């Protein structure tokens, strides 16, 4: 059994060796990247920013945040290079009242998800540094309780009423 590889390696022409080493290095590099990808505990799906009427200084961003880990993840802050300030908020439409309260954190349950959507949790984007309009891509950087951060891109969309949201889910 032990002689097997020896025989094979002896049979292998020497000029193949650089290729082999390069392939190994490439795989090692891939291995190094993989844990970095897996370190994103949160998977972001369906991100979007609601386009606001012109000259408005407040925008809202939505997404579904999936927690891939076996422990709850606390989202504690957010920022964006496109805005001077970003906060976490919760709106409610209940018993005929619309309320909005700033949140210190949004907890994503272990192996679960939180849906940031109109009339519920959202990223409140304040004081845009430039005009934000439909089609733009906005980077949002989420900060977690463990000090780690993670960013995602959200496309700015016009509309965003109930009937438009059906289309969001359709794609």
């Amino acid at each position, binding site marked *: 059994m032990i002689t097997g590889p*020896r025989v094979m390696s002896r049979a292998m022409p020497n000029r193949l*060796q650089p290729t082999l080493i390069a392939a190994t290095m490439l795989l090692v590099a891939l291995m190094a990247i993989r844990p970095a990808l897996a370190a994103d505990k949160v998977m972001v*799906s369906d991100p979007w920013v609601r386009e606001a009427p012109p*000259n408005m200084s407040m925008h809202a961003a939505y997404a579904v945040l999936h927690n891939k880990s076996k422990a709850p993840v606390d989202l504690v802050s957010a920022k964006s290079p496109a805005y001077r300030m970003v906060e976490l908020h919760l709106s409610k439409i209940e018993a005929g009242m*619309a309320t*909005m309260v700033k949140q210190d954190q949004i907890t994503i349950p272990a192996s679960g998800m939180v849906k940031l959507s*109109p009339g519920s949790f959202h990223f409140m*984007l304040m004081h845009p540094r430039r005009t934000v309009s439909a089609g733009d891509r906005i980077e949002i950087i989420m900060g977690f309780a463990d000090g780690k951060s993670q960013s995602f891109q959200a496309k700015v969309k016009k509309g965003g009423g109930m*009937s438009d949201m059906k289309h969001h*889910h359709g794609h």
Partner: protein
Amino acid sequence: MNWRTLITSRMLFWVVIGLVLVGAGVDVVRHYLDSADGPKPARSAEAPDATLNSPRALSAIDLVDGAGKPFGLASFKGRWSLVMLGYTHCPDVCPFTLSNLAAVHKEMAKRLTPDEMPTVVFVSVDPERDTVDKLDQYVRYFEPKFRAATGTKPKVDRFVAEIGGFYEFGRKRGEGAYEVNHSAEIFVIDPSGRLLAKLEPPLKPAATTELFRGLVAAYKSARTSKLAKRPGKDES
């Protein structure tokens, strides 16, 4: 180069391939498990609900519209109105409701006669930040036919009390930001200037249009019977 180096690099190659495959396998399985309980469809919206009161006649209303012109009781008379309270520094609920109202408006335009078509009026309860020209631009973004109105705080308070609405300012935060909690209902005002109903969100185009048609039909038949009774006073 001797064969030992060759074996080492070959073994390393396969070990690395093995690790990558195992890693990828774990990712695939995890992804599969995630998607099994992954994105769920949005909570199905309930049908709008009209809180029918006995119609309440509105009295003094003294607001200004998006053009800075007086917006009083006369502006409500002779046409149907759907009134919404809100403020433009509201990035979530207000644009969401206005987008839904725009969809309702579009549906109504298909099914109502021009005299039945309601005017959507967005009344800002935050006049300090919402100037009339800003308000006008704001509402027309959602639908060019929408109108805006506001006034000084006492006048807004008076109007809100008239329609049985509510609002309150939240605590001021950094950079002077503050929230305003407010009624989320849509107030239906009939062409006689009476508050007729409150529509509860969410507003679905077909269901809300149907409900509104019912209100219009009831209003019309009440008017018709009232008119019909007039000549026959002696009978009653």
